[in-house]
């Protein structure tokens, strides 16, 4: 039963993320906006392009949504408040995020449109850039917790400091990689509105676009929640109840991610790849080495 | 017992499909897909053996990891060769690659 109750905070979280997004992009705070936009989008015509790969075109948005939903299930709101406390949770969120790239390639290939296809393949390039940077910091976090379970990772931060203080390098790398997973600006190559006219979403209208947007909002929520769980101590904190802390931290991270993107120009695709392989991966290895040495020093 | 045999039969069918694909396709990447399917069938069998016969011997799981590595390595080298071939000849059709014979 508690599992079903978890749906409520997830839905509220998605709604707040949508509000924050419109606030950041329009500068006006309108909490009713997401609902109005959803109804408007459902009422819109949903067109199918002329010669599509119909199957891929239809299932791409649901796969994006399913990836988001699967990732939410293993992220805890509080000590016992979690849908599934998977023993491989840290790996599972990663596996769910990988299906984002599958969904976007399908969405790019399906409609048989030039802009969408270029955008889809661009996101594959982005995956090659960010994939190792999501994996390696999580490994360093798991080293401290001696477990891949998300609740165990939070509990490992209860004694002593949060991971953001002990592994600052991993935090920065994971944060940037998380922004790249959710294709938030400055890493928004697959939807780049100014150069690719919406990219993979160019041919999606109406209800399919609504599902796509819903999936992306879920994805942003899970990424922020993952940053909180892995680095910012999850539900830990004084005064407030545990789940309130998770909510506050997650929404702060979402706001910071959205706000950060406004001030940075879009990173060129090949620069992103070059930086993440020439700088990011060596730094991630240094992070693992650093965590290894500090843990050894603490344990001794 | 029946579950083990069920898993093995599924592995066998997947292996047969992979073998058919690897033999019948003329395109390098399609051949590789057949090989990947065969390796996938191997992994099914390995996991089934680990689960139903020796769940306490973790060398079984390690073996699966090695097979997975073989898949990745095969893909990397295969695509590398394909790219070289494509640059030289403009296609990756294997029937045209007969001049590679000694």
């Amino acid at each position: 039963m508690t599992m079903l109750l978890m749906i409520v905070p997830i839905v509220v979280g998605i709604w707040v993320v949508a509000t924050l997004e419109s606030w950041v992009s329009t500068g006006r705070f309108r909490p009713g906006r997401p609902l109005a936009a959803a109804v408007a989008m459902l009422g819109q015509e949903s067109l199918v392009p002329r010669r599509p790969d119909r199957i891929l075109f239809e299932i791409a948005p649901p796969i994006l949504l399913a990836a988001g939903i699967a990732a939410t299930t293993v992220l805890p709101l509080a000590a016992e408040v979690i849908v599934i406390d998977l023993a491989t949770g840290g790996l599972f969120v990663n596996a769910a995020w990988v299906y984002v790239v599958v969904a976007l390639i399908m969405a790019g290939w399906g409609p048989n449109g030039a802009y969408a296809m270029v955008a889809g393949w661009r996101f594959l390039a982005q995956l090659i850039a960010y994939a190792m940077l999501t994996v390696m910091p999580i490994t360093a976090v798991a080293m401290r917790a001696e477990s891949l379970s998300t609740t165990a990772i939070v509990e490992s931060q209860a004694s002593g400091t949060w991971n953001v203080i002990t592994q600052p390098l991993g935090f920065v790398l994971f944060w940037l990689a998380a922004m790249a997973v959710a294709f938030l600006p400055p890493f928004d190559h697959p939807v780049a509105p100014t150069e690719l006219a919406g990219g993979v979403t160019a041919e999606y209208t109406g209800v399919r676009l609504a599902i796509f947007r819903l999936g992306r909002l879920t994805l942003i929520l899970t990424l922020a929640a993952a940053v909180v769980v892995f680095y910012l101590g999850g539900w830990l904190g004084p005064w407030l109840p545990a789940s309130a802390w998770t909510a506050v931290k997650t929404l702060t991270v979402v706001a910071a991610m959205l706000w950060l993107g406004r001030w940075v120009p879009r990173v060129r695709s090949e620069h992103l790849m070059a930086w993440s392989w020439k700088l990011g991966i060596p730094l991630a290895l240094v992070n693992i080495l650093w965590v290894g040495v500090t843990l050894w020093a603490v344990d001794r | 017992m029946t579950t083990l045999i069920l898993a093995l039969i599924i592995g066998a069918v997947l292996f047969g499909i992979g073998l058919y694909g690897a033999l019948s396709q003329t395109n390098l990447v399609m051949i590789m897909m057949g090989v990947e399917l065969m390796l996938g069938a191997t992994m099914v069998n390995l996991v089934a053996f680990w689960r139903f016969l020796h769940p306490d011997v973790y060398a079984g799981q390690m073996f699966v990891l090695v097979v997975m590595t073989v898949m990745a390595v095969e893909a990397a080298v295969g695509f590398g060769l394909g790219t070289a071939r494509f640059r030289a000849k403009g296609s990756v059709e294997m029937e045209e690659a007969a001049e590679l014979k000694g």
Partner: protein
Amino acid sequence: MMPTIFIALFGAAAIWFGVRVFQTSSMVRSALSLLGAMAAIGGMFLAMEAEFLGVLQLMMMATEMSIMAIFMVMYMMDPGGLGQMDMSHQQREALAAGIVATLLAVAVALLVNWGTVAKEVDSTTVQLRALGIEIMERSMLLFETVGVTILVSMIAAIAVAVAREPKR
């Protein structure tokens, strides 16, 4: 009972996707069908309580098959399969070989006496720890050999694939 049902379901899905790989003429579709087959195999691993391997399979194969799709698009003239070009040969022999291999493997699976079947496996937490110990102790040599294998494949792939500018 539940694991058997799940294994049967995911196995059927894997076989169906596996057949689809060689049926479509669209390259991206066949790469994504292979991903479907591999993801179903990952589901079978989950049903067989090898949770780490299952999740890993789901994850690795998604990246691998996406990259396979883009290589297909780079190599082929007609990756969308609009021309319905036939790209197969020796169909009959291949089909015969496939069926014979399947029948042989099924016969082995049915005829061999597999002995007693284990009922219980360790919990995932224990499994993960045991796998880590296995990698670090008994299979240490294998693990480092895998490292060298990956290095060799990286060097080989880059060496043959990257075009060099002619020396001046």
